[in-house]
Each structure stands twice: as C-alpha cells, then as structure tokens.
C-alpha cells in the first residue's frame, strides 16, 4: 500500500501546509517530540480513546441482549478515529488511514448486508428471511451478522469519510 521504493510510510514533504510535522525527518540528528496542537487534548485523547473503543465494540456485540446495536456501536468506533484526528492533526491521521481503508469498510458493510438479505431471495424465499439458511438458530446468527458486519461497518466508515471530506473542503478544479 505504501510507495514501493521508500521504506517509510509517509513520503517526506515540506512542512509548509500545516504546522503538524509528525514524521521524524532523517536530517535531524536527534528524534524530536512531535508538535501537538494542544496538550490538554492530547493527554485526554490518550487516556480516553481505549475506553471509548472498548465501549463501542461492547455495545455493538451485545446489541442483541441489552440496549445498543449496530448504529450506536458503529458511530462510537467511527468517533474514535475522529478523536485521534483531533489530537494528532487531521493530515497525519489522513496519511495514516490511507486512501482505501475507509472506502473498504463502508463498502464491505453494505455488501455483507445485501448478501445476507438477497441470499434468502436466491434460496427461494422473501428478502431477509432468516429461516431459509441451513443453520439452527438462523435468525439469531443472521441478526448478529447483519448488525455487526453490516450496519456497524457502514455507519463507522461513512462517519469517518464524512469527517475527512468536510475537513478537506472542495477539491477538483475549484480554486
């Protein structure tokens, strides 16, 4: 996924676009501490992010037996990446994510949901009729798969994508 001829992941570029020089240039003799926008945000995000991620995954996986489900958990997982973008800067987080990850997550979610739904049409029944799948307790497994593998992935991917798109502004030939 990275450039084939360079060993580092972030291609060295001039730090003229913003003040977040997060990569360590090889010309400096000693490693510098990364410049952060705000100490308060960085310390808070470092402490809070693992808990928010765990809570989001917990809510997604336990959506069948307690309040929660795919929407809430997927939104929380998407918001974790947003918090990292607040702390470390939007452009370094964008470089870390790469161009394909967000698209892959969102498209995979929709594909899983459509496959599970239309699979039962192929098997001769109605849309999303779980009883036709040859598992016992097919309804429970089907609901869990749709919630975790479908809805949560779509919501997480689209929330991340909307954030980075709105932060980037208009592209193309708009000056």
């Amino acid at each position: 996924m990275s450039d084939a001829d360079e060993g580092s992941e972030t291609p060295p570029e001039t730090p003229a676009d913003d003040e977040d020089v997060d990569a360590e240039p090889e010309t400096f003799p000693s490693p510098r501490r990364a410049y952060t926008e705000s100490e308060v945000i960085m310390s808070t995000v470092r402490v809070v992010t693992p808990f928010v991620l765990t809570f989001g995954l917990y809510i997604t996986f336990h959506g069948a037996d307690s309040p929660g489900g795919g929407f809430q958990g997927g939104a929380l997982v998407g918001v974790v990446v947003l918090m990292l973008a607040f702390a470390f800067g939007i452009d370094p987080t964008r470089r870390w994510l790469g161009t394909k990850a967000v698209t892959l997550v969102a498209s995979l979610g929709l594909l899983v949901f459509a496959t599970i739904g239309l699979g039962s049409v192929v098997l001769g029944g109605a849309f999303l009729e779980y009883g036709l799948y040859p598992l016992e307790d097919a309804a429970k497994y089907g609901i869990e798969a749709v919630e975790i593998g479908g809805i949560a992935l779509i919501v997480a991917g689209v929330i991340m994508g909307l954030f980075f798109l709105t932060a980037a502004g208009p592209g193309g030939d708009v000056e």
Partner: protein
Amino acid sequence: MMEYVAYALVVFVVLTGIATALLRDVLAAIIVFAAYSLGMALLYTLLLAPDVGLTEAVIGAGVTTILLLLTIVKTVRPGGERTIERFDSRAAVACGALAVVFGLTLPDLPAVGDPNSPILSYDAVTGHYLTQSYAETGVENTVTAVLAAYRGFDTFGEATVVFAAGVAVLVVLQREVFT
C-alpha cells in the same frame, strides 16, 4: 420524583432550543445546540428509550456538532456586534399561528404514559412483538429484533441512504477518495 427530573429536563431543553434560535453568533448557536442535543438524549433515556438516547447522544451531540464546526471552519463565521438575532415579526406570527393550530389538538391526545393509549393497547402489533420476539428470533432486545428481523427491509434502505450520503458528499465536493 422522576416527574420532577423530567420537568426540569423539559424546561432545560426548551430554554436551550429558544437560545439557539435567538443567538446571533453561529459558533455560540452550535455550542448551545450541542447542549440541547445532550438534554434531548437524557430526556429520551428518561422516557425509557435507552437505544434512542445512546444514538442521539453519539450522533446528535457528537457527529452533527463536529460537522457543523468543520463547516464554519471551512467557510466563514460572520462577525458582528449584537448578541441577539434580529426578530422577524412576520415569521414569528406565522409560527405562532402554527403553534396555536397544533395546540388545539392537545386535549385530544392521550396523556403521556397512559397505558390505554391506542399504540399500546393494540395487541395484534405491539403485543405480538413484545410476546413473540424471543420465541421467533432468539434475541431479547425487542428493538433489535424489530430493526433487523421484522422490519429489516427498512433498515436496509436506511443503510443504503447512509452510504448514498457518503457518495453524495464525494460528488458535491468533487473528490475521488474519502480520505
């Protein structure tokens, strides 16, 4: 006891809603709107809807506020001297007439929490979902069962709308990749 908490929350929500309408500075309106969303999330939880409260807290008070703040970073935050927005009397008269028309229907609505209201006493729909959902689907959360099994086609439509919104923002902003 719980009614007093509910009344206090309703007063807080209505006050922040009116404050959002009256403040002139866009940044101040966005911040008060975030407080309004949090109050609404608490009110939903108090009305025994924890799924909806969680969703409103994350998406209303979280993602919508972030997107609004990003928009005024990317565009402009209009400066000015006044604190309170200019009052438009024609719009206020029209909205007041609408409020009076809706308010005339208030005596015909059932009381909040009435167990004999038509939604709750119709056993063929609500009663069926409440009593049969564990036997038919195996999940205990009836909201998840209705969302993913009984009304799964609506959820599929909504997932498609979310994805389509992502693609629409790509098209509007003339970009090719999300990040």
